[in-house]
């Protein structure tokens, strides 16, 4: 098995009394695609936020390529080669698409010693790759949702990361768009980027992930290949339970 690129040791994040992430251990190997699934509020996004130290960690350690990076400044973690996208897209609205990606190219893992001009070239290359080549001069806030998701991806890729955390890049995309996105993700992985994917869209998970981890109320419920996990009794219970809940809620509304 290849080198461990990211490892978390009983990572926890508490908001007041509530444990959003509860003693989660995880290892991620270079070149792997790990899916993290779980019902809403299971702590998936929080988990990523803690790894990238967008939120201060409560307890536990995070290791990147064997080096402990627990609560390093976020920008340093990013420069190490850990990129992420946001579930709620965060484009730089009053910049053009090109400029958005350029920022990533300037400050990411590959940004050091790169001149503005070089960064711009890099950005254009990445934008072509994610399929925004024809919209580089648009204002970011004029893109469609699908476009914004791609832009989110482009910003991350422009950083030339070794590890890329994708937070629900497929959510809200229609079937065709999802297909396209999945191809894109596979392609990214084929180019040697390790992926940590948070998804609701099971299709996508099964389609691209080699390994899946299930979070429930912040705790790790199960781990294994997609098939194993999806047939895991606890997982089914968790999801069905949630489905019932949702149905009842709809009944009320």
């Amino acid at each position, binding site marked *: 098995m290849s080198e461990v690129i990211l490892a978390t040791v009983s990572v926890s994040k508490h908001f007041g009394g509530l444990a959003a992430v509860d003693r989660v251990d995880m290892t991620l190997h270079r070149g792997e695609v790990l899916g993290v699934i779980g019902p809403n509020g299971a702590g998936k996004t929080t988990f990523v936020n803690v790894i990238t130290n967008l939120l201060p960690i409560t307890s536990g350690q995070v290791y990147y390529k064997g080096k402990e990076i627990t609560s390093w400044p976020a920008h340093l973690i990013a420069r190490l080669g850990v990129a*992420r996208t946001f579930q709620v897209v965060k484009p730089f609205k009053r910049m053009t698409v090109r400029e958005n990606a350029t920022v990533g190219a300037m400050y990411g893992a590959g940004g050091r010693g790169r001149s*503005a001009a070089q960064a711009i070239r890099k950005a254009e290359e990445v934008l072509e790759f994610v399929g925004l080549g024809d919209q580089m001069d648009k204002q970011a806030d004029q893109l469609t949702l699908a476009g914004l998701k791609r832009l989110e991806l482009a910003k991350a890729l422009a950083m030339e990361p070794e590890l890329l955390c994708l937070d629900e890049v497929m959510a809200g995309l229609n079937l065709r768009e999802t297909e396209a996105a999945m191809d894109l993700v596979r392609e990214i992985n084929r180019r040697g980027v390790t992926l940590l994917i948070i998804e609701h869209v099971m299709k996508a998970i099964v389609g691209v992930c080699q390994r899946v981890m299930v979070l429930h109320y912040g705790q790790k419920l199960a781990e294994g290949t997609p098939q194993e996990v999806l047939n895991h009794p606890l997982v089914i219970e968790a999801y069905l339970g949630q489905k019932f809940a949702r149905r009842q809620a709809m009944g009320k509304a």
Partner: protein
Amino acid sequence: MSNLKPETPNLQSKKPMPVTRWDRLLGTRRNAVYLGACAVVLVVLLILPHMSLSGFVLTSLTTALLLAVRAQAWNFIGGYTGYAAFGNVAFYGLGAYGTAILMTKLHWPFFLAMLVGGLVATVYAVIVGLPVLRMRGQYFAIATLGVAEATRELVSSPQLSRLTAGPTGINLPFFRPAGLSGAAAAEAGSIFFYYVAMGLVVLVVLATWWLTRSKLGYSLVAIREDEDAAKMLGINTTWAKVAAFALSAFFTGLVGGHYAYWRTFILPEEVFNVRYTLEGILSAVLGGPGTILGPVVGGGIYDAVSTFLTFSKPFGIDLGQFHVTILGVFIVMVIVFLPRGVADFFGRRKLSWGMFLENVRQNRV
């Protein structure tokens, strides 16, 4: 902010953001007309002093230029970085005091003293900025306002009076051009301070132009648009913000130095007058924050308007009592109908009165 990219073609996108089109217009290096306009203005400004204007007109122009610099300096932190700094007068005052103290106590030459005065302000900005820039929005605004007030009291406190002469202020050496006297000397003086002010404008505009093409510039706008996303892309936001704050402080400090030597005296209540902060911000907003030339133009317009209100009797009516009131009304009007500043005019394909109402509609409840 698209002026980040020189080669950006000037294409019409469906629903252009005003700020951007303005930026693009100003930012496109190959835009001959734009360069031409700059050149024309530059030449005009260069020859103006020699068109035998009265000392008064020269002084008025000088104040306009200085205001332009203050506005553009604020633009670094307020316009590009999106942090509403309300304490820039602290840097203005420190620049003035630094210059005054160096010129009187150590008898340094003016330009050196002014430069160091600016650096004093810069250092102060770094020290203050590290804690204060951790706050956002209104809290930051208030904190900076507080810092400015506190700085004034500190400078005029008996504890520091050995250095700053406390509240009684400092007299600077009087500008006396060698070998000249009377009217000639006076004119030489006016011209000297005019050109220094103009030099500062050119300097600050070039600095902005450089900034918008530099990595720092990119990170500042990224921070303005979304600080978390910026962090996640590997931007050291703390450092970037402090840098912007320091840059802002440096130029504000330089203006302070110019002021001190020009006025030949400084008093705490004068050089730390919150008026200076607000004029700067208003000019920047008037012209269009986050643009290369907007604040400079805004400074010119603001000064012209207030000078006009002070001196003129439109339709023979003496505004007398009311000119400050009218200035207030003018500010309110601009804020209500043109919150994006004059830059807004350049964001539209065709200008119509409708745009004002549109602005209101965007922001009202």
